[in-house]
């Protein structure tokens, strides 16, 4: 919820104000680090990323979060979101949809050039959409977001008309994403290899050099004067540049921040956050990612979870809350929704997820899983109650992997044999392709509730052998399909919200997923770094207004 996001930032603001007051009262000359006044121009920020180094800096290619993190510093989108989740102007100043929802006109700013001098115009938007839809680009995230866009027509230099195959209530939300950002057509024309090394945008920084496995150098775009409508200041960034480093090890990253070698780190882990909070010298940004929450999907496409009683039994038996408390040091809040709490349309129902071992046992007895072996594992007709749970060690942080172990232990009390299998990314995808799983946790970041259609519409169950499918719960319910399809084309906000609420009730009420918490996204930075904020779109930090205080 947006209100929750505001509340999260309140204590910080209150702290800043309080410390400013205290300091002002005692030593009038002293300055509180949180309120040290005027921005300072100059200096190079050192960013340390724990995410995998992108193999291509152009977020049109592939399209994952590490790409979004860095692309947000040099690329911009047509529209953005403000803190309350409203769509606001960015490169496009206004937009109108036709009554049938099939034609959208975007009016562009007429005073913007890419950093290679190419003007931003309707033709550039057309080239970008075509680039995203071209199979040779190998786009996945941006491509999916433009699924209903057939073509872009150049109406005039500043008006780009999107022609859609069906009404798309998620179009604006999709266009806020860094994976759909607008790049220089001349840059795209250089070909994939060159464009991957240094994409050209309109953003506050320019890619100067990329030394693989070490860092990307970004320098200030002196002509920068765009930014989303809620940007804090006009004109070029204060920083001279950014050195974007890749430090995969969590402890090293934190040590580098403590030693002052870097100014900000991402992927701060629960133990690190706990240490940082105790030391009190660092500043945290908690910016949950939009889209889906982190949840365990139960594969309803095959036994035993094709039986709703067994799914409910698993959810009743798995003790999530104690695990989160013990392992996340209070840095993660339990979720009872399949959507992120930053999604305004997230629907939450805590009553469905109360832990109740007796109820779990009763449900399993009723479902016929009555035999138990010496270890207490249930079976039915000689088939043990096995839950294969492939765990992606790239995507699940150590605390989450430990949480899965606690879930494994508590589910065993009801007679489930949960088999956790830690796998690297390719192996994990492999287990999913071959349907060798009963439970799985997969993150999905996307702006807006349309992520529900991607995750739970039966179209997302692509038949084996070749395809990836996002519907890992293998949820196949015509009523839900109809709701999600209708919601995706409903232009009335209230009607759309109602449809998504009904859809979420079906998903939660059918026990297809066990929500854990928001997709965690914590940053720690030195108090020297000021004016940084996480974008309300996909929660990546922006340094367009940031400065390094002396």
């Amino acid at each position, binding site marked *: 919820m947006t209100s929750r996001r505001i509340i999260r930032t309140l204590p910080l603001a209150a702290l800043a104000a309080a410390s400013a007051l205290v300091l002002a009262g005692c030593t009038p000359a002293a300055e509180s680090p949180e309120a040290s006044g005027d921005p300072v121009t100059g200096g190079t920020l050192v960013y*340390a990323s724990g995410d*995998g*180094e992108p*193999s*291509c800096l152009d977020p049109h290619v*592939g*399209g*994952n*979060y*590490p790409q979004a993190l860095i692309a947000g510093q040099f690329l911009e989108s047509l529209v953005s979101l403000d803190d309350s989740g409203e769509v606001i102007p960015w490169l496009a100043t206004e937009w109108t949809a036709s009554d049938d929802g099939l034609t959208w006109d975007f009016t562009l700013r007429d005073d913007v050039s890419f950093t290679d001098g190419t003007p931003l115009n309707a033709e550039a938007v057309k080239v970008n959409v075509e680039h995203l839809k071209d*199979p*040779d680009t*190998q786009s*996945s*995230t941006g*491509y*999916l977001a433009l699924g209903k866009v057939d073509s872009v027509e150049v109406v005039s230099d500043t008006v780009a008309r999107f022609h859609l195959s069906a009404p798309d209530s998620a179009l604006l939300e999709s266009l806020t994403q860094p994976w759909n950002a607008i790049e220089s057509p001349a840059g795209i024309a250089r070909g*994939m*290899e060159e464009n*991957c090394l240094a994409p050209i945008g309109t953003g506050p920084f320019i890619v100067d050099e990329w*030394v*693989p*496995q*070490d860092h990307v150098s970004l320098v200030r775009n002196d002509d920068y004067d765009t930014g989303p409508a809620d940007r804090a200041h006009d004109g070029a960034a204060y920083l001279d540049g950014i050195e974007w*480093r*890749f*430090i*995969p*090890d969590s*402890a*090293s*990253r934190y*040590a*580098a921040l*403590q*030693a002052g*070698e*870097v100014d900000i780190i991402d992927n701060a882990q629960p133990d690190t956050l706990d240490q940082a909070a105790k030391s009190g010298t660092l500043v945290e940004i908690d910016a949950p990612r939009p889209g889906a929450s982190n949840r365990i999907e139960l594969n309803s496409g095959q036994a035993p979870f094709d039986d709703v009683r067994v799914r409910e039994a698993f959810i009743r038996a798995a003790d999530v809350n104690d695990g989160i408390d013990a392992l996340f040091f209070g840095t993660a809040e339990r979720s009872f929704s399949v959507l992120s709490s930053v999604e305004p349309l997230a629907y939450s129902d805590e009553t469905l997820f109360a832990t109740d071992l007796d109820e779990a046992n009763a449900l399993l007895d009723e479902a016929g899983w009555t035999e138990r072996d010496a270890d207490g594992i249930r079976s039915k007709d000689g088939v043990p109650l096995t839950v294969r749970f492939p765990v*992606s060690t790239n*995507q699940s942080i150590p605390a989450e992997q430990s949480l899965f172990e606690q879930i494994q232990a508590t589910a065993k009390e009801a007679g489930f044999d949960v088999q956790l299998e830690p*796998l*690297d*990314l*390719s*192996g*994990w*995808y*492999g*287990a999913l*392709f*071959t349907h060798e799983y009963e439970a799985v946790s997969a*993150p*999905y*970041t996307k702006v807006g509730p349309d992520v529900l259609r*991607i995750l739970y519409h039966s179209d997302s169950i*692509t038949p084996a052998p*070749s*395809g*990836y499918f*996002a519907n890992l719960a293998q949820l196949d319910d015509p009523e839900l399909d109809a709701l999600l399809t209708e919601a995706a084309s409903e232009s009335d906000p209230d009607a759309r919200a109602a449809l998504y609420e009904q859809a979420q009730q079906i998903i939660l009420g059918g026990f297809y997923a066990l929500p854990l918490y928001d997709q965690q996204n914590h940053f720690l930075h030195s108090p020297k770094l000021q004016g940084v904020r996480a974008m309300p779109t996909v929660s990546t930090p922006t340094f367009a207004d940031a400065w390094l205080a002396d």
Partner: protein
Amino acid sequence: MLWAVATLTFFAVHLVPGDPAQAILGGPGSQASQEALDQVRADYGLDRPLAVQYLAMLGRLASGDLGDSYALKTPVADLIAGQLLGTLTLALLALVVAWVLAIGLALWSTSAGRIGRAIAAGIELTAAALPHFWLATVLIAVFSTSLGWLPPVANDQPSGLVLPVLTLAVPLAGFLAQLMREQMLDALEQPFTTSALARGETAAGIRLRHALRHAALPAVNLSGWAIGYLISGAVVVETIFARPGLGRTLLRATELRDVPVVIGVVLVVALVYVAMTVLTDLVSRAIDPRIALEERA
């Protein structure tokens, strides 16, 4: 031998479940469409039978072409050339430091009494058993976080090399010192020691000029193996200290099933290993002329 290495690696990578096409198209949070997956499979020839892919790879390698990386779309040779120096610098420095530490420890422990030897044996055993990741974490905690003397992550300055080199060198020094100490003690009991003493050689002189030569021989032979050990250790060390290099390249390529890069790196490491073995052979001859004599006889 290189052929065997390439073959083994190729099939080992393919034995592990996983789909390179999926990995090529992104990672966490990026969900590839069917069209894109099919396209990638066709582009990279991943839809062909394994045997065909294997033969194609051999043909490529035979003509000296390491191919292009799946994930980075750049030639593997360029990729490795850019990373080789960093890893070799790290490994060779670690080897030198390990030798210095080992020689120092061996000279001291053989001159010390029974208690000294016991202490040395304890140090060697502990050092040799230290896992790299643990040692790295402790070194960072002590020398960066607590004392603030050295940077916790690699940088352009030589100071950034100290902790990574120590992490690799200390366990290896443990191995080498263990070996050398035993050999030196053996050598000191040989008749030539007595005759040297009779010639008026000092105890320290004997250790430096005679026993060390004996002791060094097996340790030199071990250095070929040590380079392999150090490069495999580089996978951990480069990751923890965020140093660019072959170890990190290999780790990342394995995760992505970037087969051409994995095979390329393994081949280059094998080449370095071969070169190092030849080198240690030559050094052994210099230290012990008997080797060449025996061959001539």
